[in-house]
C-alpha cells in the first residue's frame, strides 16, 4: 500500500461506466481522476502518481492490455497496482497474461470493487 496516497486513475471509454467507477471510488474515499481517452492514461500516471489504476480492456486506439504492458515495462511503474475490468470472455486470461494485479468481470459487484479500492488506496 502506498502510504498516504488515495489517488486512483480510472479509464473506460464508456462514459456511463466511467461515472459509475468514479462514484464508487469517491464513495470509498478515494481521490479520483477519470479519463475516457486511453491515450491520456500514461501521461496522467506520470503526473499524478496514483496508488491504483483501473483500466477497461477494449478501448479504441490504445487497449487496456497495451497500457498495462507499457506500465509493466517501465521500471518506475512495474509495481503499480492495476485493476483490469472487462466484459470480454477472455478478459481474465488477457489480464493475467499481462501482469494485472486484480481482475473484475463486467458486470461487477460494487462490493468487490469497493474492497479493491480499500485494499490499494490509503483511505
Amino acid at each position: 500500500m502506498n502510504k498516504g496516497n488515495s489517488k486512483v486513475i480510472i479509464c473506460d471509454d464508456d462514459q456511463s461506466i466511467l461515472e459509475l467507477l468514479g462514484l464508487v471510488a469517491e464513495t470509498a474515499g478515494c481521490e479520483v481522476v477519470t479519463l475516457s481517452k486511453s491515450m491520456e492514461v500514461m501521461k496522467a500516471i506520470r503526473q499524478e502518481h496514483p496508488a491504483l489504476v483501473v483500466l477497461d480492456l477494449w478501448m479504441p486506439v490504445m487497449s487496456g492490455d497495451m497500457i498495462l504492458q507499457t506500465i509493466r515495462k517501465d521500471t518506475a511503474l512495474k509495481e503499480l497496482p492495476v485493476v483490469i475490468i472487462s466484459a470480454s470472455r477472455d478478459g481474465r486470461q488477457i489480464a493475467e497474461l499481462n501482469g494485472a494485479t486484480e481482475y473484475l468481470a463486467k458486470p461487477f459487484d460494487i462490493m468487490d470493487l469497493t474492497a479493491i479500492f480499500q485494499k490499494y488506496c490509503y483511505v
Partner: protein
Amino acid sequence: MLLSSNPNIVSEGGHVQGLTFSLLFSALNASVSGIIITDNQQPDNPIIYCNTAFEKISGYSRSEIIGHNCRFLQGKDRSQKARQQIAVAVEKAESCKVEIRNYRKNGDLFWNELFMAPVSDASGKVTHFIGVQNDITLREKAELELLEQKAVMEEQVRERTIKLKENEAFLSSIIETVRESLLVLDPDFKVISANDHFFKTFKVSSQETIGKLLYDLGNGQWNIEKLKELLLKILPTNNPVLDFEVEHEFPHIGKKLMLLNAYRIELEGQYKDRILIAIEDITERREIERRKDDFLSIASHELKTPLTSIKGFLQMLSRLQPAGMPDQYQVIFDKVNVSVDRLNMLITDLLDVSRIQSGNMEIHKDNFDFDKVVAETIEQMQSVSPDHTIISTGSSRALVKADEQQIVQVINNLLANAIKYSPDSKEIYVHISKVSDYVKLSVRDTGVGINLEDQQRVFQRFFRGAEFQKKFAGMGIGLYVCEQIIKNHNGTIWLNSEKGQGTTFNFTIPIEA
C-alpha cells in the same frame, strides 16, 4: 443301306439268302426306330412295309398303314416346311432328314425325326423309298424348354443389365452432383477415380490425377506425415480418418482449408481394399464461423457494457438510499439485481454455445485445489440462495489440472439447477470424491425430478422438459454447456433421477489432464 444296295438278293434268294431275309425282318422288328418302305412304282407311293416300332410310334395297326401314303401322319397340319423338303427329295430321288410334326391315331402330336432315302434298281430307277422314324417329342420338348429358358434368361439378363446401368447412372449422377471432392485410391494410394467436383475444386485435369500417387498430386499438398500414418492404418484396421484439416497453399486455387475424411470401402471382390477419400473446402465456412464468433463476442461485450452501468448504479442507489425508506425499496432493488444477473448469464451462455459449436472454446488448464474451488463456489451460491442449504461432504485432496473458470461454471450451473428445480425442498447435497485418477462431484436435490424420456435429452442444446417450460424460466443452454466443458476435459457427466424424488448430477474429470 443294306436293302437299297442290292434288293435283288431278296427275290433271287437261295437257302442262305432265305436265312438272311428272315434275320433281316426280325432285326427290323427289333429296332426301336419306326421303319417303313414305300413303293414308288405304284400311284401315290403307298406304304408296303412297316415294322412293329412304327405301329407303336404312330398308334395305328399294320392293316391301317399298309397301302396309305405317309401323309396321313400329318393329319390337318399340312403347311409344314418339312413337307416341302420331303416333296423335293422324292422328286429329285435324294435322301433327306427332317423333323416333322406328326399325329398319332389318338390325335396326339409327336415330333418325328425322319430319315428318308430312295431305293434304286440295277438300272438306277427309283423303285422304293425307305423311311426311318424316331419319336423325338421328348427331345424336342426339352429343346423347346431349353430355348424358352434361354429366352427367359436372356430377358432377365437384359432387364438386369438395364437396371444395373440405371443404378450405375443414378449413383454416378449422385457422385457427380455431390458438393464434395471424392477420390478412390488403390491399396498403394494411387488414384483410381475422381469425381467432377474434385477436378473443379482443385482446377486439375483427370490426366494430372488418375493413376498418380495421392502424395504426388498438386504440389504435394497431401504429403503430410501425420496423414500418411493415418491412411496406412485404414486398410488393416478399418479405422477411418475423420475430419483431418489441411491448410495449404494449393496450386491454382491458393490458400485453402480442406477437411479430409477417408474410409475403407467395405466391398468384397474387385472393389476390395479401396480407399474412398472425401475432401471438403471449409475455408469459407470456417471464416463465417469466425465472423459469427467475433460478432457474438462484440455483441455480448456491447450488451454487457450498459448492463454493468445498470447493475452498478442500481447497487449505488440501494446503498445510498436515505434513511426511513420503506422496506419494499430494498426488495425491489434485490429483484432487479437478480434479473440483471440472469440477463448477464444468458448473454454469457449464448456466447459459450456459439463458441462450442464452432469449436473455438479455448481451455486454459492450470493446477488448482479442487476441494477449495468447490467450497468457494458453494459458498458464493449459498450467499445468494437463502432459501436453500447446500450441504457438502467428502473430499478429493486433489490438485486438478483443468480450466478453473470453466469447472466453476459447471458447478455453478449444477447448483443453480438443483436450487431452481427443488422449490419446495431445502437441502442440496454436494459430494466430492476421488475415484482412481479422477475427481468426482455429485450434486443431489430432492426436487421435481426428470422423467426417463427427458433424461436422455437434458444435455441437448435448447432442450427444455415440456412440463418445466412454463413453470421454470430458462433457455436450455446450461447443461449443454456443462456437458461440452466436461467433454473437453475428457470427463463424463451424467444423471440419476426419479420423477418426484429428485435428481443427482455427477461429473468426473481426470486429475492429470
